[in-house]
């Protein structure tokens, strides 16, 4: 592929540099070439036509890394990828440059290869303000647009907002935000104005495996008796060193996943955080968060079966309320922010049960265990490696259609917890 046809920026990995108005014609030529190759190589050429995938990066390195990751995403039936590299600096000329290529990956075996189109576009200077229009001209018709915003959000959100306008779903990773709390609030506000666009957060995806394991505890009828009596929730998240437990190194802490999990648990259990400051504790130095809640909205909670020993309808709920604590744990060999402990303690008519999910030998495994009076269940090792693989997380998010209301609700709960 000739990447030196025109002067200016070079992206050797991005394919052939073309004029933007000729993108479609040039792609047709590439498809003809690919068809010839297929006849020679006997591979079956497959094109899927399910979605447009727009990846927005702020530098070439991130874009190239995302381009490599596409290998693992061919199963998401991408029709066309647009890699958008934005450089909004005001001291550089406004310029748009375009490269095209076809990507081809084997599907399970090499007999069948999945092809899709990749267009890389660098947008510099003032032109970045019109990035949405530039992208819109390159979209395949009649297919939804999934926008993956890499890394941090920009200070000026207008470009992001305009891209939301043309997107069906935006995917972010809040664990990479430099100011996660502030930036997530901003996104949340923008989305309320763009009701057609759904939000996916890879941090929520990481937490979903733990949500499934927590749900499994209470799938068992005997254990569900303790559900409404849960009075203590402890969540620990990994930090790389003891330095991270000091205020000066707060940036090393990534409690986003733990906060989402806590918010989800709180919501599912119907607990309400009142305005009383005594009920909230946040140590900005050490990264510890804790809340005490004593009010509960039972209308938001599904009922549980009554205790077998009770007559009539009784619901067990802890009279002292619930304590939720999030705290860091130093684990040098763990990815920062990884949730390494979830423990739920509950009582039912004086009997106490403890439900634990704890990190195993590595980040890819957790051990679930239950300590319930007069009941034994062996601990179990579960593989959650998929939660650490970005492509897998993306794949899961790209399979979702429509808004994830549970995530959005949990997100708003996080704001309330941090308020």
């Amino acid at each position: 592929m000739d990447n030196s046809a025109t002067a200016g920026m070079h992206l050797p990995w991005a394919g052939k540099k073309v004029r933007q108005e000729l993108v479609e014609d040039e792609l047709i030529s590439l498809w003809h070439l690919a068809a010839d190759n297929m006849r020679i190589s006997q591979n079956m050429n497959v094109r899927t036509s399910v979605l447009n995938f727009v990846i927005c990066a702020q530098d070439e390195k991130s874009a190239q890394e995302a381009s490599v990751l596409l290998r693992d995403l061919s199963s998401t039936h991408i029709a066309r990828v647009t890699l958008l590299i934005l450089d909004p600096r005001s001291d550089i000329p406004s310029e748009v440059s375009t490269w095209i290529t076809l990507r081809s990956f084997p599907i399970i075996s090499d007999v069948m290869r999945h092809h899709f189109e990749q267009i890389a576009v660098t947008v510099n200077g003032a032109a970045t303000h019109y990035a949405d229009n530039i992208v819109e001209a390159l979209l395949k018709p009649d297919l939804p647009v999934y926008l993956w915003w890499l890394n941090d959000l920009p200070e000026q959100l207008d470009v992001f907002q305009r891209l939301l306008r043309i997107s069906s779903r935006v995917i972010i990773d809040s664990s990479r935000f430099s100011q996660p709390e502030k930036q997530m609030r901003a996104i949340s506000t923008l989305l309320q104005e763009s009701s057609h666009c759904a939000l996916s957060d890879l941090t929520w995806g990481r937490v979903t495996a733990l949500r499934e394991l927590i749900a499994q505890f209470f799938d068992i009828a005997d254990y569900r008796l303790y559900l409404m009596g849960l009075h203590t929730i402890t969540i620990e998240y990994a930090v790389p060193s003891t330095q991270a437990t000091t205020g000066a190194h707060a940036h090393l802490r990534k409690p986003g996943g733990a906060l989402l999990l806590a918010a989800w648990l709180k919501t599912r259990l119907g607990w309400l955080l009142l305005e009383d400051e005594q009920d909230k504790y946040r140590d900005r130095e050490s990264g510890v968060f804790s809340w005490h809640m004593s009010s509960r909205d039972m209308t938001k909670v599904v009922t549980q079966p009554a205790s077998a020993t009770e007559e009539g309808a009784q619901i067990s709920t802890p009279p002292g309320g619930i304590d939720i604590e999030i705290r860091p744990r130093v684990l040098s060999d763990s990815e920062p922010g990884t949730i390494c402990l979830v423990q739920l303690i509950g009582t039912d008519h004086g009997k106490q049960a403890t439900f634990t999910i704890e990190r195993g030998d590595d980040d890819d495994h957790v051990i679930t265990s239950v300590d319930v009076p007069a009941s034994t269940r062996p601990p179990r090792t579960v593989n959650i490696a998929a939660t650490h693989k970005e492509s897998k997380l993306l794949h899961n998010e790209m399979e979702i259609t429509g808004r994830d209301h549970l995530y959005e609700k949990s997100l708003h709960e996080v704001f309330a917890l941090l308020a």
Partner: protein
Amino acid sequence: MPQRNVVEASNPFREGLRIKESLEPCVMVIFGATGDLTHRKLLPALYNLALEHPLPAGFSVVAFARRPYDDEIFRKQALDSINQYSRQKPINPQVWESFVSGLHYLQSSFNEAEGYNKLNTLLNKLDQERGTSGNRIFYLSTPPSQYPEIIQNLGAAGLNKNRKGWTRIIIEKPFGHDLATAHELNRQVGKVFKEDQIYRIDHYLGKETVQNINVFRLANGIFEPVWNRRYVDHVQITVAENLGLEGRAGYYEESGAIRDMIQNHMLQLLTLVAMEPPIALDANSVRDEKVKVLHALQPLVGHDVLKNTIRAQYGPGWVGGHQVPGYLQEEGVSPTSTTETYIALKTFIDNWRWAGVPFYLRTGKHLPKRVSEVAIQFKQPPLMLFKDSDTQGQVEPNVLTLRIQPDEGISLKFGAKVPGTDMQIRSVNMDFFYGSSFVREQPEAYERLLLDAMHGDSTLFTRRDEVEAAWAFIQGILDEWKTAPRDTVHSYESGSWGPQAADEFIWRDGRRWRRP
């Protein structure tokens, strides 16, 4: 806090999760666990379920079999089997450690009452140690001749009932040898277990592509209006195997293609294609519609059997680049055997939707390739506008093909103009491949079925009346074949698509077999 009436609660944490339904831990007791099915299919399926963690903590397996093994030997064999047959490799050692701690072995004969008492003791112990809460699945993976004594002994030991938890029984095909034995087996199992405890397995129903038949028909508005006698010319259902007996002469001689394939898998495919949309997607609503199709099949009795069926045995030939013997030369086959390795039949469904539309079914061993498909051929347009001699004859009918295996997917054949100045029409295929559109690895059929059984969802299992209705249809054919002359058993070359008689059989109707 407001008091509320207690109802059976759902799990509040389940909302928004992909897996919507609870799964309680249980013990799966596999009778005949040293056999092929357990090692090739069941254990790998259970391990994959453990790996993808819908399998609950505490899930346990008890292998109940005659061989003098113990826990350690069985666990070692399980490891070997999973290493060989699991769709996900290599084994994850940490998950394996959790999984293998739930595998146990109990040596006993199936007719030994004491063995069932020991089983009862072991199950109670597992309830205590592993929290299986009295939930049991009994899986009969033995030769069918042993089903009655196992079922009877389970009943005698009280294992069919629990003071707490649930009990289910999964029974492998073949379910009976004919209508009478199927009815008798139903009666025997019905004496011990209630119908909602009984899961008659047909693994075809667990295949993604078979489940997709209903989705395809009922989730897309464009197909249902043409899914009837006004637009469909005929339907061909093909299940072809390129393998031969593979050492199973003892079973196959008693079974033949009609019992091995037609009575179960192929009639299941037929019912799914032909049924009316159910009023709901619960197990009984779906199965009600399937049973209606079976009851509407035109019976084949007497002379109609020979007119509408062709049976044959494979002769010597070449398959997959290897020379193979004929059926009668296979070890364990009687030289005077009339067991069919190939059958083609034509049937009609007497209802408003399908009256007059022939359904052709064919299946056989040592055919050129392994393929299962349902092909719906539509009628030609009422007026052939492209009458020019260059184009006529090139305009083939539209065919919608549901490929079950391999190359799972759906294709639609239609005519398109060849670019150029003259009017040339060629047939083209519009393909949807599971393998490329959804590259996620498909779960094995047994994974889905075992999970459904644990969930208590019997939609993908056959019901008592369904089994008996299928047998009722087959019985007429079996009865006629018993007295039919030997020369009604044709021969075909291994590696060919069947006997000449089968070709003539469909040519008579002005149609031809597809080449899948």
